[in-house]
C-alpha cells in the first residue's frame, strides 16, 4: 500500500485570484516581506500497487486524467509506503 500526497497548483502563468487576495491580507497584517502567494490543493490518495514504480505510474495517470486540469494547473506528488 502506498500513500501519494499530490499537490495541484495553478500554473505560474495563470493569475491566482485567491493567492492575490491572501497576499494582500498578509501585507495588511504586517507581513511586508511576502512577495507572492499561490494557493493550491493537496490530496492524499491511498493506492495498492506491487511496487513504487507501478504506484507512481497510476498516480501520474490519475493526475493527468482527473485530478489536475492541464489547461491551468500543474501537479507534483510524493509517494511513501504506507
Amino acid at each position, binding site marked *: 500500500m502506498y500513500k501519494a500526497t499530490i499537490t495541484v497548483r495553478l500554473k505560474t502563468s495563470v493569475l491566482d485570484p485567491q493567492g*492575490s*487576495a491572501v*497576499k*494582500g*491580507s498578509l*501585507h*495588511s497584517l504586517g507581513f511586508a516581506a511576502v512577495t507572492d502567494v499561490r494557493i493550491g490543493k493537496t490530496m492524499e490518495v491511498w493506492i495498492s500497487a506491487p511496487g513504487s514504480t507501478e504506484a507512481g505510474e497510476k498516480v501520474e495517470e490519475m493526475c493527468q486524467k482527473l485530478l489536475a486540469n492541464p489547461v491551468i494547473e500543474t501537479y507534483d506528488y510524493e509517494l511513501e509506503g504506507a
Partner: protein
Amino acid sequence: MQPNQNVMGTSTVMEPTPEEIRDRKLYSELGLTPAEFEQVEKHLGRLPNWTELGIYSVMWSEHCSYKNSKPLLKRLPVDGPRVLQGPGEGAGVIDIGDGQAVVFKIESHNHPTAVEPFQGAATGVGGIIRDVFSMGARPVALLNSLRFGPLESPRVRYLLEQAVAGIAHYGNVVGIPTVGGEVEFDATYEGNPLVNAMCVGIINHEDIQQGVAKGVDNPVIYVGASTGRDGIHGAIFASEELSEASEEKRPSVQAGDPFMEKLLLEACLELVQKGILLGIQDMGAAGLTCSSAEMTAKGGVGLDLYLDDVPQREEGMSPYEIMLSESQERMLLVVEEGREAEVKEVLDKWELPSAVVGRVTEGDRYRIFHQRECVADIPVKTLVDDAPINYRQGEEPLSFREETAASYMEELTGVDPTEALQRVLAAPSLASKRWVYQQYDSMVRTSTAVRPGSDAAVIVLDGLDKGLAMSVDGNSRYVKLDPHVGGATAVAEAARNVVCAGARPLAITDCLNFGNPEKPDVFWQLENAIDGMGEACRQLGTPVVGGNVSLYNETKGSAIHPTPVVGMVGLVESRDHITTQSFQQEGDVLLLLGANFGELGGSELQQQVLGMISGRPPQLDLAAEKALQSAVLHLIQAGNVSSAHDLSTGGLAVAIAESAFAKGLGARIDVETDLTVIPYLFGESQSRVLLSVPKEFAKEAMAMVEKQGVTCSRIGEVSGEQLSIWINGVEVVSEQVSSLQTIWEEAIPCAMNASLTN
C-alpha cells in the same frame, strides 16, 4: 428492560456511571437543573445512564421543547380558513387554491454563526430547506434576515462576509433562489449576530407528509450523510448565552454539504410522489434523538433503534455520540413493512447512503440498542409531551416608563434636510444591500418575477396566473422601545410589504430572537412582543403557522435588542398585479396614503444623529393599517398603480429616494404641512404607502382610497433626474438622484472593502 448501566461501547471516552452523574451533579453540564434531573429519575423509576441523560437533556432544551416560551406561544393565533397545517410539524401549510398549498418556515442559526460564520449560516439554510421538503413540498424560494454589529469592527466584517458567503453557497448549490431578506446593523449584535433563514415551498394537497411513526413492525429508515461527531449538543449550545468559552465549542458547529442536500431533496420528493412514505422527519437539532422521539411520540407507538446499523463516518462512536450527533443532511423515514426495496431503489439511484435502523413497536418505550445491549429505555412521552415547562414572570423595566419623557425632537429638527437624507441613505441598515444579495442566485428555477431589492419578492407559479409574494421583517429598535408596539409593527410591516407587491397577506412564520428569558425584563419583552404580534395577526387575518424561538442571545450578560422577525407570505392572484417600488414613468402622480404624525422615536435619523434611540416608537393603529392595506391592494388589483412602496425606516424621504433609484427617475414633491421639515420627511409613522399612478387615474385613485377611510394626499410627481422637495413653499432638498444613489449603493461595499487591501 433494564438498560446496561455502564455502556462504554468502543468509545475511547470513559462515560460516568449513573451514580457519578447524580453525586457529582454532572447533569448540570448538560444543561439540566437538579429539579429536572429528579424528574428524569422519576420518569425512569431509576437513575439514568449517560446516554439517557444526554437524550433527556437535548429533548428538554429550549431549542427542542420551547420550555420557556411555550406558555406564551399559545397566545398566538394559529387557525384560519386556509391553514392546512399549523405549528408542530416541519413547517406550516397554507392553502392557495387549485389543489396547491404553500409551505414555509423560518428558523434561527445564531449561535453557530457567531462561532463559525460560514458553516453556521450555511447549515441554517440547509436545516430550513429540509424542514420544508420533509413536508413533501418542493422548496421554491429562500429568504433571510440578518443582524450584525457595526461594520467598523473587523470581526463583524469577517462575520458578515463569511455568513453571507455561507448562505449563498448553500442555497446556490441546492438550486433554490434566495429572493429576499433584510440586513440590519446595531451594536447590540456585535458579539451575537442573528441569522434567520426562511424557506418557502409548494405542494399539492394530497402530498402533505407528517413526521410520525406508525404501524407496528414498520421499518425506520435512515437516509443521507453518515453520522460523525460534529455538532454534538448543538441544541444545548443554542440554549445558552455566548461566552468566551463558546469559541472553544467550535466542534459543536456542523459542516454542511449542499450537494448531499440536493440529492436528499430530489430522492425524498421522488418517494413522496410514489406515495411510499408513512412518516418523514429531518434530523435537525438533537439529530437522531429528536427526530425519532418526536415521530414516535406523535404516532402513539414505541420504537426500537439499532445504532450499529446507523451509517457512521467515524470509528468507535458511543451511543451517546450517535444519538446526539448533529451531522447535517440526514432524514428519517417510516415506510410500510415490505416496501424497503422500493425505497432503496430510489435512494440508490440518488447515490445516497441508507439503512433500516429501527422498527416501530407496540407500547410506549423508546429503546436504543448498541452492540446487542439495550443502552436506553425511556417512556417516549416523557421526552416530548412531558418536557418541563417554566412559567416565568416578566417585569417591566424601570427604563420603559422613563423613555416616555425622553426629549430629542429639538436636536433632530435642527438638522439640515439634505444632510439628513445623505446620512440616512449611507447608514448600513438602510443602504443598498446589493453587495449581499448579488452573491445569492435569485433567479434559478426561473420563477422569480421580483428579485431582491423591492419591498417583497414575488415568484410565479408554473402553469398558473398566480404568484406568491414574500417578505421578512422586524424592526428591533421599535421592539426595544416598546415590545408590544414593536411586535405588532413587525407583522404589520411584513403584511404591508407583500400588499405593496400586489398580494393578499396569507400567514406568517416567526423567529423570536431574544436574550436570556430567566431575566424578568427579557421575559417581559418576549411576552409583550408576542402579545403585540398576536394582536396584529388577528386583526390582519394572518395566522402564525410555525416558527422558532431563539433565546439566550447575549454576550457577557448583555442582551441583543429584542428581535422578533416575521416572515410573511401573500398570494398574488394574477401576474398582472405584480408591483414593485420603483417609479415607472415621468409624469406619474405621487400619492401618499396614511397619516403622518412626524414620529422620530426609534427612527433611523435619531440613531444616526444622536447615536442612540429613545422615546416611544411610532404608534400603530391596526384598524387604520388594515384599511390602508385593503385600499392599496384594491388599487393595485384595479390595474392602475405604477409603483407602491411601504414607508418604513427613514420615512417619506427615503421611500421617495428608493423608488427613484431603480430607473433613475426623479421626483418633484410639493406639499403643505403643519409638521416641520425633519419630522415630515424622516418621521417613521406606520401605516403609510407611497404610490405612483398614471396622471389620468390620479383623481379616481384618490377617491377610491378616501372612500375606504384612508387619508390620501397628492404630494408631487415623477419627473426628471432630480429629487426636489418643496415644503410649505420652500425647496428643502434638491439633489441629483444619481448622486444620492451613489451614496446609497456604495455605503456597504466601502465599509466592507476596509478588510481588503489590494
